[in-house]
């Protein structure tokens, strides 16, 4: 148990204390107590920066279930540290923001809010810091759970519950697939430790389980990171309070999938399938998200689709970056790992500008009472600070210099252009698609950035549509976005501040073994590359983006723009309905509530199962050699017995049927006599008599209404099933008899015959077996009788009075 373990567990511990703080210290907003923790953790993680940037890693061990290979091991390298800093840093800002956002201490259930938020924070730290796949999975599901709880924070709203359920269903299904993938990895490598799995990467790739494991893991990563077609939960998750959207659905949780893909790139990255799936789905998500975003009328929905699109961008870059495994860096230079560099850099940038934009949208919502861009406008002069911050965030997102978004976008274009020069996996022909899609998607990105910004802050102020008197937000709400926006500027102006400290070690952990021993990535990000293709692409993006935005009015009446919701929601909503109606149908079909149907099912199942087994293992063995001679008595008895049995279904009078049953019983007793079983015969006679008496008694009590005679109805199914069961049982008996001769097993009856008098001092072997050799059976059988009798007494005497449904 090291300090790093405590770091992961600290949020959970604080989450336990939060309700007490909320209940007993009412004067102070609970958020202030919560804020201390992420701040402390952030400062703590900063201390690791020098160590990590030297290229070292930290590994702390803590056994959890050692017998199953589950260790709560913590592994801190560049990638983990980057995420840990994002989680704690933005976590601090979000908590600060939420203090002012959820300012009403009486109305808001703050206890719940901060418990969920801390739970999420701890789970997220667990995901990024763990080295063990199972531990990652545990924390992964915890983030899903916490996310759902936070989305449904205002649980009295129907939309919130819908969004929470949707995100839960999608992310948990993905998480479950991921667990399957992890298990397959375990099967292949016999370890859950990521580092050990990476060390066996070259063995795994030849394993037949490689592709299933990869697909399962990717399913988990794609559902969490809102990649196409699993992105539909993210826009509906916008029903959460804005701090939650800013934290979970832009900066941290949705990047868990990115983290996982980046983390497992060394394992799977060398496979062409990985390259194509990750970069293909990523680039498609990019364009799908950016096109969907301009259709939205709600600011948060625009941001949600914006997030989807940017996540697709990062994902595709990681996919493209995996090409580096196929080249020798010493020969081709930095060309192929630019994509990875761009991914890491954009990951940081996106967290900063998207977080600030969400907070800005929250402020606008908070101060005007609406997020609908049709009602907003002209807020520039009323909310100048908000406006400034929004300008910075938007320009960064659109990719305009001198902000950090520009740099990462340039690198993205570089990586996309590099993709065309790759000579692996058919990239010579299909690679050209990457820069084209990237460019078109960037145009739409620019368009929705402008749409969002212009419609909110420029134009005419429309106070008549707003419910509140609009004024600038309180300073507490503004500090977090201001900090994020200044980071946007700082990272934009001095990108190399990040390059040496965090980007290089992060790349080293995504692409290990690419560099020779002792070498490091040398990252140098700068603004001016000269007049190259990327620059012209950016100029084109600005021009065409402005064109798209200016013509938006013309297109806004088309059906494409009127439909805000993603068409894939139709699939989700309907499949939910279909699952329910389908399972209802299936249940109604089989659960008829009629005992006779269930008997038919059982009969069919017995015939099917036994018949199949007999045919499959070929165990028909009818042997007529080892058969005893049949005496004439037996012949006559069996014939009468058969005749009575066959007659039974055709008897239309109940009393006659009962008497016929009695006849069968007495005939069986006679058979016992013939087969020399006097005890059995006596018992059978007496029991049969008592049974008939009981039948007649029960008969007397039949209700008045049902006393009419009846003829048993004929049903072909029933006949077939009963014939089938009879045939199967007969065949089984015959085969068993024949086989017992083929493979003789010594009978234990010899022992009883020899020892009944010697050991038990009795000559009646049956009785000796019953009371001596096997006395326990007898004891429990009389217990059965006793229970049956008491049951009858209870049923008859303790009659319920009302119309109870038992």
């Amino acid at each position, binding site marked *: 148990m090291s300090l790093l373990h405590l770091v992961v567990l600290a949020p959970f511990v604080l989450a336990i204390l939060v309700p007490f703080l909320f209940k007993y210290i009412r004067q102070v907003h609970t958020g202030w107590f919560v804020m201390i923790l992420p701040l402390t953790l952030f400062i703590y993680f900063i201390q690791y920066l020098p160590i990590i940037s030297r290229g070292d890693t930290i590994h702390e061990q803590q056994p959890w279930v050692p017998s199953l290979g589950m260790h709560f091991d913590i592994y801190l390298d560049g990638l983990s540290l980057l995420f840990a800093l994002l989680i704690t840093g933005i976590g601090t800002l979000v908590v600060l923001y939420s203090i002012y956002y959820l300012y009403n201490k009486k109305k808001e259930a703050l206890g719940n809010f901060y418990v969920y938020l801390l739970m999420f924070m701890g789970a997220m730290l667990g995901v990024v810091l763990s080295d063990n796949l199972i531990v990652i999975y545990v924390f992964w599901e915890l983030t899903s759970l916490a996310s759902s709880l936070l989305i449904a924070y205002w649980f009295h709203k129907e939309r919130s519950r819908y969004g929470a359920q949707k995100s839960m269903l999608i992310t948990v299904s993905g998480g479950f697939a991921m667990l399957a993938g992890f298990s397959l990895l375990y099967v292949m490598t016999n370890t859950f430790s990521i580092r050990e799995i990476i060390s066996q990467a070259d063995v795994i790739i030849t394993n037949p389980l490689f592709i299933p494991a990869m697909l399962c893991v990717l399913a988990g990563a794609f559902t969490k990171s809102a990649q196409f077609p699993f992105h539909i939960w993210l826009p509906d998750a916008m029903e959460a309070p804005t701090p939650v959207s800013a934290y979970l659905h832009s900066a941290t949780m949705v990047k868990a999938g990115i983290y996982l893909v980046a983390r497992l790139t060394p394992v799977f990255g060398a496979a062409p399938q990985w390259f194509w799936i990750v970069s293909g789905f990523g680039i498609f998500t990019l364009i799908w998200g950016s096109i969907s975003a301009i259709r939205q009328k709600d600011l948060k929905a625009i941001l949600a689709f914006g997030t989807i699109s940017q996540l697709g961008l990062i994902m595709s870059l990681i996919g493209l970056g995996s090409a580096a495994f196929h080249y020798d860096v010493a020969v081709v230079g930095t060309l192929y790992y630019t994509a990875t560099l761009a991914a890491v850099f954009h990951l940081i940038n996106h967290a900063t500008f998207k977080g600030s934009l969400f907070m800005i949208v929250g402020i606008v919502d908070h101060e005007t009472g609406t997020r609908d861009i049709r009602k907003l406008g002209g807020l520039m002069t009323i909310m100048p600070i908000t406006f400034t911050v929004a300008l910075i965030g938007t320009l960064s997102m659109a990719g305009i210099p001198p902000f950090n978004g520009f740099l990462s976008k340039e690198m993205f274009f570089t990586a996309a252009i590099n993709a065309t020069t790759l000579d692996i996996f058919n990239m010579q022909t299909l690679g050209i698609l990457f820069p084209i899609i990237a460019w078109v998607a960037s145009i739409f990105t620019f368009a929705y950035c402008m749409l969002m910004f212009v419609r909110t802050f420029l134009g005419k102020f429309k106070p008549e549509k707003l419910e509140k008197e609009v004024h600038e937000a309180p300073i507490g709400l503004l500090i977090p976005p201001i900090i994020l926006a200044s980071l946007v500027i700082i990272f934009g102006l001095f990108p190399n501040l990040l390059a040496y400290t965090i980007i290089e070690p992060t790349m080293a952990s995504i692409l290990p073994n690419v560099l020779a021993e002792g070498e490091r990535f040398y990252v140098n990000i700068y603004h001016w590359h000269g007049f190259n293709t990327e620059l012209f692409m950016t100029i084109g993006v600005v021009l065409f983006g402005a064109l798209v935005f200016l013509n938006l009015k013309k297109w806004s009446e088309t059906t494409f723009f009127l439909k805000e919701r993603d068409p894939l929601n139709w699939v989700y909503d309907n499949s939910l309905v279909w699952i329910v109606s389908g399972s209802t149908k299936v249940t109604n079909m089989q659960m008829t509530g009629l005992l006779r149907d269930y008997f038919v099912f059982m009969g069919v199942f017995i015939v099917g199962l036994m018949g199949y087994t007999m045919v499959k293992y070929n165990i028909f063995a009818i042997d007529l050699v080892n058969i005893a001679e049949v005496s004439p008595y037996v012949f006559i008895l069996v014939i009468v017995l058969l005749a009575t049995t066959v007659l039974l279904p055709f008897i239309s009078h109940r009393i006659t049927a009962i008497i016929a049953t009695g006849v069968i019983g007495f005939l069986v007793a006679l058979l016992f006599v013939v087969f020399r079983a006097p005890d059995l015969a006596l018992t059978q006679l007496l029991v049969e008599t008592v049974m008939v008496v009981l039948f007649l008694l029960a008969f007397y009590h039949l209700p008045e209404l049902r006393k009419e005679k009846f003829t048993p109805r004929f049903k072909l199914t029933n006949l077939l099933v009963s014939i089938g069961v009879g045939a199967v049982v007969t065949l089984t008996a015959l085969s068993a008899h024949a086989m017992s001769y083929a493979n003789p097993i010594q009978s234990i009856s010899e022992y009883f015959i020899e020892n009944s008098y010697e050991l038990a001092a009795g*000559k009646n072997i049956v009785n000796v077996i019953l009371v*001596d050799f096997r006395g326990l059976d007898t*004891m429990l059988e009389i217990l059965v009788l*006793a229970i049956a*009798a008491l049951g*009858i007494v209870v049923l008859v005497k303790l009659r319920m009075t009302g119309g109870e449904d038992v």
Partner: protein
Amino acid sequence: MKKNLLMLHTITRIVAFIILSFSVFLFFAGHNNPGGGFIGGLMTAAALLLLYVSFDIKSIKKVIPFNYTTMIAVGMLFAIGTGVASMLRGFPFLTQFDKYVTFPILGKVHLTTALPFDLGVYLVVVGVTLLSILTIAEDDA
């Protein structure tokens, strides 16, 4: 409408005793000849049932004031008790013993612990049969 059932009553009085004796014989003969607790119990129950059928239930209840529920319990106790007794002497549960003992009047008698066990079976069977039949028969709801 009251019928005169003199014939039935007279014959029942004689036959019931014969059946009862036969059932006792079956019970004791069990260890060496066909019979035993189960059959003996059923036979006793049959004899008592004959009494219940030919006379009315109320008067027989006065004559035979048994509580059949208690009889079941006692029977179970006998059966379990035999097993526990062998345990107390350090043998496995339900180990049976036998011994030839000479009594003053009866002479040499073969005693086995299987007998109290069988007695338990006997009592339970009698109790169960009569309890269920009488409960159902008395039910007038």
